[in-house]
């Protein structure tokens, strides 16, 4: 099954250096510096935010099944950290999962905005469909104020009539979906709601198509990311859909972006923490995220180049990315923050 292979793959990548919660947060796309950093550190960037609708319980059940099958084993007493077994590796190799991962999911430039974009797209389709069929009242698919406001603006502030608007969206979508592999496009469009045709949930699509739920999620994200890339690269061809994509500020999480602005204005980490009423450790999380995503920002104040080299060297010799192991080795010579910064700066490039 796809879901089993996917999890085995991730557990192998994480190599017992994170708890299963770390994997869960990765798939869920938790907007924390730790999860974002992990996605870079362990070479699993495409999987960040891949299953944003994942439920804790079903995820936990899947982990238990892998364990019962003898494909993974526990490495701590609390049953929270696992590594892959030989049997698991066999299973993983046979699945050939690395070759079945669609290219679309590897496009990660839009991952912070894909959730909002997807809601807006669905609401715009539903709204225009209702107008097209002269339905005066319908229950919108989402009530999130930023989403409904955006759609309201689009529907009201156009020089086009509503019928023209609907026709234009139809044409843009046809063109976009034609560029996407058929299986992905079908799965993508099956979620659209319109007049007397409510979109299917991911679970219903999985049942209908006989595919594994995790595979469906991946095909969907692949389609979504391909589509967003196509639109962003060809804004003039898809003006209406392009208006749904929020201008990409940076791939930083919003809160880390605020911290970066303050740091740039000359505040120290501690002053930033006080100013924002956040704990210092939160600001340190932001620093790590900044190290990953804003390579031009000067971090030498927190980590001298010499120390950075030293840490990287030790990590390399110890063959681990586990902070505690490295810290025990370096003792008082480096702080946790410095180790995290060093790893963040040096694993990607």
């Amino acid at each position, binding site marked *: 099954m796809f879901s089993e292979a996917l999890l085995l793959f991730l557990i192998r990548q994480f190599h017992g250096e994170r708890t299963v919660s770390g994997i869960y947060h990765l798939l869920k796309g938790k907007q924390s510096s730790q999860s974002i950093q992990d996605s870079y550190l362990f070479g699993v960037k495409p999987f960040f935010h891949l299953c944003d609708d994942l439920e804790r319980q079903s995820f936990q059940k899947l982990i238990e099944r892998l364990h019962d099958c003898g494909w993974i084993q526990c490495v701590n007493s609390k049953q929270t950290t696992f590594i892959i077994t030989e049997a698991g590796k066999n299973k993983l190799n046979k699945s050939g999962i690395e070759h079945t991962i669609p290219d679309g999911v590897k496009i990660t430039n839009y991952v912070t905005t894909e959730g909002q974009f997807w809601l807006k797209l669905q609401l715009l389709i539903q709204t*225009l469909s209702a107008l097209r069929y002269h339905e005066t*009242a319908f*229950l919108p*698919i989402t009530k999130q*104020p930023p989403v409904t406001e955006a759609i309201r603006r689009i529907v009201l502030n156009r020089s086009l009539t509503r019928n023209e608007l609907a026709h234009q969206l*139809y044409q843009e979508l046809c063109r976009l979906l034609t560029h996407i592999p058929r299986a992905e*496009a079908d799965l993508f469009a099956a979620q659209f709601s319109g007049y007397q045709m409510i979109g299917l949930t*991911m*679970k*219903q699509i999985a049942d209908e198509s006989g595919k594994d739920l995790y595979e469906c999620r991946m095909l969907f994200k692949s389609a979504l990311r391909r589509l967003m890339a196509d639109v962003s690269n060809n804004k003039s061809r898809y003006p209406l859909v392009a208006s749904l994509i929020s201008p990409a500020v940076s791939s930083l999480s919003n809160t880390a972006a605020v911290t970066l602005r303050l740091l740039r204005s000359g505040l120290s980490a501690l002053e930033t923490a006080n100013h924002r009423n956040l704990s210092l450790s939160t600001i340190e999380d932001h620093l790590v995220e900044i190290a990953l995503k804003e390579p031009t920002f000067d971090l030498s104040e927190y980590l001298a180049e010499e120390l950075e080299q030293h840490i990287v060297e030790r990590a390399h010799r110890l063959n681990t990315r586990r902070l505690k192991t490295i810290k025990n080795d370096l003792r008082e010579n480096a702080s946790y923050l410095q180790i995290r910064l060093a790893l963040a700066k040096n694993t990607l490039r």
Partner: protein
Amino acid sequence: MEKMIDLDEEDWLRQAKTILKKKFGYRQFRTGQQKIIQDVLNGRDVFAMMPTGSGKSLCYQIPGYMLNGTVLIVSPLLSLMEDQIKALRSAGEMHARALNGMMHARERVRVLRHLRDLRFLYISPEMLCRSDIREALAKIKISLFVVDEAHCVSQWGHEFRPDYLHLARIREQLGHPACLAVTATADERVREDIIRSLGLHKAAQTIMSVDRANIALVVREVSSDDEKMERLCTLLRSTRLPGIVYCASRDWTEKLAQLVHCKLGIRAAFYHGGMEALDRRKIQNQFLDNQLDLLCCTNAFGMGINKPDIRLVVHFHFPATMNAYLQEIGRVSRDGQQGLAVLYYSPQDNQYPEGFINSNFPEESFLRHIYYELDNGVLTIKNKDQFLNDLQERGSSETAARFIYERVREKPVHQSFQSIFKRSRSIIEQRRSVLLRDLLVMKNYLAATECRRTYYLNIYHESPGKKPVYCCDRCGISLADFDQANFDDTVIHREQLMNWKERLPYIFKEGDRSMQ
């Protein structure tokens, strides 16, 4: 008493009926509606108890068309507001809006700017407590002040909302418009509380029966879960749908939806609070749009849902109170046609409501420990959400966490947390014993050897009226009477298209649907 409009009896009735027919498509008023509307039009304060599904909204919507000014409806339920506005829009009413905390600030400004044009304004109690909103409202003419779910004003009710206590004062500030207070369920104590707290003056009261004569009641005792599932399948194989199956847990909703779908080929889905908001909405809309025949759900489904043609409600597990049970079966056949409610129970089902009751409160040792941690500064209540989260991480249920928060918030400043432990414990005991008493009433209903309807009417101090043809299993009915074959419903089976080249043209009404 000042009359709000000057019409004699004949005139107003004719006018009201014309509106009923033209705007809402009904030919006759239902029991109770006519008297309430008459009292409202006469400018009286009115208290009305109407069971869910008996058309209480018409009681202020019809006057809305006959009075000058705006009808203000205070409602605590967002989904209900949304549903009502949708219903009004469908009836061609464009001057109905809502004001609640979930809206975008810009949207709120838009509504406030056009207050004067509104015929109906739905508002949440917390919005009404804001002074800027109240000032804006004071400038327009409020023709009627409606308090929906009025039992929330009573501390005796199970849904007490402190915001509601300000309503009487706010009504004064808005120029003392006539007040209509409505609720679905309220015993005598709660009724008195409502009338007093809202300051209703010589209120005209209409108390409607909780009975829904068009719903037949069946209770079946079984010995195991397997037998239950078998019986459910037999029932669903022939009985008229759409229907709802209420379960006590999320797992069961998923299991049953799967079973029914695979075994009977019925278009079924599950619905529970653990799902993503978007998925919940899709499933709900599919059900409303007849793309689904059966919904297996927890009690998270139903509030504010308006689907008049649900024909069957099954309880796969019984709820903890008779109130909840009546509310849930009350969703059957709101259009007045014959409906059916079936409840299955087996001896091991007792665990669910008892578990539910227990999950409302923390265990004694847990509570003691939390107070200890608070006294020692390990835990703080500075940030409410953080505190609730901390408690849940320590193994508390969400409701128990809220319970603890309420207790520690009431603590006098200079006392230790440990010092309020005894009082907290006695509150738990009190509340638990109320809930257990309610549960006992529910269990007695299951075991009743007399007519089920007579039993529950007794609880509400009502005497039974004329016995309906299809009353209950004790009076003798046959499930075969509810067979799909006896009704000529035309079920629309629209395939749920998985092919985008067909789906997209349909959604946008482009070209021929069969086009390739």
